[in-house]
């Protein structure tokens, strides 16, 4: 098991730059997620690491072995990297057992015990060994693909959006099984995904990519609580973004006077709250009020859209037990500190629900 270091890697397809100087370090035995919207270059980075394509510049190092850079490129087959493609990519003409043992030496391929062991590692029954790939469900195909990638004991495993084609119900189980198998095998893993919930819940560290650059590399909690900019903030979760005025270290805004996470100079600023920080109460004097516009009920929790008297709309996330009905007047309070960003920071249009997945 080895670490992965990517230094100043660039790549263009024709005149279109796809990666513009990526630096990334993945510690040995860790699980890193490459998170970004489609077209941000994350899959290209994965293919460069795997050796399916060569970077235009920069170096890629596995452990202490440079596999790409300074004019040398180790071919994919000599890198010892396991690869799990988007839809599994199982060889359709081979049985499950033959798929799993594809990367092993000829005499090891006949070893039924090894097949059983690998299938068990990914939580599959040994009875499936003689099936054809098309007889498996999508989740089973992904697990077989992982078993196949792990069979030659790779130093690094790359997963390219392996769960995106699965039904929501299958996705959770498959994620769980994949996480456990990766832990059990002690492999270093890099997962490409556009689903922030997947990245936050599975990974030890998340690398957020945008427009061919890596904008933040952090553990999931830091990423959620201290995003480098409002763009990342809204990408990794629902956000309440408000204009505020800082005086004496306190932010004055439509939701009242809020403490700040980190000191910020006096003057106009823009603050970030997470919807779960917004609390609703009976209407009382002294607190800002709002009218409930609508309630999206998810069972375990709910998202409440609130219209402030100023016309601004904010989101609150509540547990599902006590919900206001549409049109009621409520008062708002905020728990915890707000995060300050420079005034006028651009915010990506937050599409409610689409990128959250935290439901």
């Amino acid at each position, binding site marked *: 098991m080895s670490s992965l270091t990517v230094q100043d890697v660039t790549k263009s397809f024709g005149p279109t730059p796809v990666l513009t100087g990526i630096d990334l370090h993945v510690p040995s035995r860790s699980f890193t997620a490459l998170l970004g919207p489609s077209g941000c270059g994350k899959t290209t980075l994965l293919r460069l690491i*795997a*050796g*399916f394509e060569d970077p235009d510049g920069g170096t890629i190092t596995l452990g202490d072995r440079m596999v790409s850079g300074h004019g040398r490129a180790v*071919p*994919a*087959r*000599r*890198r*010892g*990297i*396991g*690869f799990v*493609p988007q839809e599994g*990519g199982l*060889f*359709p*003409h081979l049985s499950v057992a033959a798929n799993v043992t*594809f*990367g092993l030496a000829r005499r090891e391929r006949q070893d039924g015990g090894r097949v059983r062991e690998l299938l068990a590692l990914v939580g599959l029954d040994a009875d499936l060994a003689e099936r054809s790939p098309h007889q498996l469900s999508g989740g089973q195909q992904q697990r077989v693909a992982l078993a*196949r*990638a792990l*069979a*030659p004991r790779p130093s690094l495993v790359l997963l390219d959006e392996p769960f995106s084609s699965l039904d929501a119900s299958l996705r959770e189980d498959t994620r769980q099984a994949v996480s456990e198998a990766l832990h059990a095998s002690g492999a270093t893993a890099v997962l490409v995904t556009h689903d922030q919930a997947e990245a936050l819940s599975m990974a030890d560290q998340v690398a957020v990519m945008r427009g061919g650059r890596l904008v933040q590399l952090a553990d999931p909690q830091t990423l959620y609580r201290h995003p480098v900019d409002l763009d990342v903030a809204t990408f990794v979760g629902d956000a309440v973004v408000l204009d505020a005025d800082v005086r004496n270290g306190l932010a004055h805004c439509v939701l009242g006077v809020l403490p700040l996470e980190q000191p910020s100079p006096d003057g106009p600023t823009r603050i970030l709250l997470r919807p779960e920080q917004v609390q609703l109460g009976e209407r009382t004097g002294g607190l800002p009020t709002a009218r409930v516009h609508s309630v999206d009920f998810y069972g375990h929790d709910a998202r409440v859209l609130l219209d402030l008297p100023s016309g601004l709309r904010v989101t609150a996330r509540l547990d599902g037990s006590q919900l206001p009905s549409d049109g009621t007047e409520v008062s708002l309070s905020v728990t915890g500190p707000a995060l300050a960003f420079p005034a006028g920071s651009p915010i990506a249009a937050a599409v409610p629900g689409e990128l959250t997945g935290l439901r």
Partner: protein
Amino acid sequence: MLLALAVLVAALALLPLGYIVGYTVDVGWSGVRELVFRPRVGELLWNTARLVAGTVACCAVLGLGAAWLVERSAVPGRRVWHVLLVAPLAVPAFVNSYAWISLLPGLDTYGGALLVVTLSYFPFVYLPVAAAFRGLDPALEETARGLGLGSWAVFWRVQLPQLRVAVLGGSLLVSLHLLGEFGALQMLRFPTFTTAIYDQYRATFNGPGATMLAGVLVLICLLLLLAELRLRGRAAYAGSGRGAARPHRPVPLGGLTVPALLGLAALVALAVLVPLASLTYWMGTGSSSALPVGELVATTGSTLALAGGAAVVTTALAFPTGWLAVRARGRITTMLERSTYLGSAVPGIVVALALVTLSIRATPWLYQTVPVLVAAYAILFLPRAMVNVRSAVEQSPRLYDDVAAALGSSAFDRLRRVTLPLLAPGLGAGAALVFLAVVTELTATLLLAPTGTTTLATAFWSATSGLEYGAAAPFAVLMVLLSAPATVLLSRDARRGMTT
């Protein structure tokens, strides 16, 4: 390397076309005027045009009607009818023609020719249209009904526009086959360009007359191809949803059930029963003069050997282009792929004529040898192999290569363990279709076969030319038996190998 091979294949495919163009330029405008603007050519043009127009119209009506009945109506026995409606493809057109004229010698008229070729060719429209009906999303029809349209309006305003590509494609196929058809029309004594070229060639060998007639014929083929492209336009009707379409609810025919059944039965009787009955009759009559077993075995042997060789060569030739068309899609590879299709749209008689002349002039030691004959087969039947090679390569995306490489597999190892196993079924299907096409190929074989080499088709032809209908029957039966498997393949997957 592959690209160079693909360029060579395209050059081979375009050879006959290039020969005709080169020859025309050599002859010059005055020569062309002298050779082409003659009453005889006008007569041939009129014959060819009215036969093509009549046949296309009849085939379109029959194919569309039969496809609607089988795919959309509640007519009883739809699966059986489907097989029976594809079955005429197992009887080569010239055998069908023989079956009819040997029973009814009075068929040597326009009407007779129209009847016989329509019965032979309507499946070319039926098959793609039936497949298109199957692919139509029932939700569209339901939506139309929801908007208040009746059955007839649904057919006219919703289904027919979506079937346009299939009907046009089928009609083009009928036209190109008909323009190249030699045996059937020669036997019916209905002169068209193809038969006239043959007669000219027999009379004056490779005179400029035959070549100029071929030039006009090629021009008509190219114009048809262009017209089809224009008419089809950008009509790619993508389905807006994914996943398999729900099965359709068949339209009940009510009181029309019996007339529909009678219509289908009449069509099948004319297209399948008549040729089979005729063949059976002549087999019985011919057997009085004892079956020439030795000759049958020898002819079958040489036919199978030629067909096998041509199948392997043609599939091998299709491989580089088919591979590049998928794996390295670009303007050049698309052009190379198109040029093989274009080359194959040239009728067999023209390909044969071009190869005869070129081999005599450039490589006399190759004239009337097996390689030239196989080259002709390859030019004619490349699309059958190409369509299958292409779809096989599409089934084997680069992803599998990448995965295998990541698992430590070398280039050769990947070819052996991944690529070839995945391609094998498609390559096999392509080779099988070429094989079966060669078994019943008549025109090019007549002109190019080495002296002393007879195939089932040419042996059949020489027997019928002497009006020995009984002696011809066993060869015809063998060809029908050998064609049957291809017909089964086609009835399963209408898109495969239908081109030329």
